[in-house]
């Protein structure tokens, strides 16, 4: 059975304890990075490489945030974290975050890219702001 992302619950936090549900002002969660280093060498007399495994790289979580001017919404929370260089945490549950569903949470990260609101006079699209958070890793858990 195919699963869909339409009920995703997205939350952000500046301390990992107090979370703000920003699902209604977030339009996308995208992932990048996290590749694991692998090294290889083929010694003399061997027809295939010997492969070693190394650490993972940092993970990039990209959010498309719907611009609003609330003082504690996603836009303001992430803007402040970006401008102050302070920690931000992101967690999301693709199927809505109710009991039994999987939840993915970042370690404390930093906003490395933040696009301030922009647009065109003839556009009918809501204003979207793209935010990129870099974090050491993402942890999966089951909501109970």
């Amino acid at each position, binding site marked *: 059975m195919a699963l869909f992302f339409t009920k995703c619950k997205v939350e952000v936090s500046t301390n990992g304890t107090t979370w703000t549900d920003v699902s209604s002002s977030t339009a996308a969660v995208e992932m990048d990075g996290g590749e694991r280093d692998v090294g290889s060498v083929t010694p003399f007399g061997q027809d295939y490489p010997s492969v070693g495994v190394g650490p993972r790289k940092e993970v990039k979580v990209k959010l498309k945030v719907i611009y609003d001017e609330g003082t504690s919404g996603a836009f303001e929370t992430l803007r402040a974290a970006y401008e102050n260089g302070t920690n931000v945490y992101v967690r999301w549950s693709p199927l809505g975050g109710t009991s039994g569903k999987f939840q993915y949470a970042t370690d404390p990260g930093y906003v490395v890219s933040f696009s301030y609101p922009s647009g065109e006079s003839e556009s009918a699209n809501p204003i979207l702001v793209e935010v990129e958070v870099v974090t050491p890793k993402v942890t999966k858990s*089951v909501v109970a």
Partner: protein
Amino acid sequence: MKFRAKVLLFNSKTGKYVQPGEETDLSHLDEQTIDMLVKGGAIEPATEKKEKEVK
């Protein structure tokens, strides 16, 4: 009622993670949800493992 986590759990009442093997109170969940988590292999009754350990 207390349950033992079999996977990394996020207790939505306490807002804290429960590591596999640790016990946690899930009295905020209804019977149907508990049953789903047990059948899904996420938790087990805390007493069940103790009985096995005694044997």
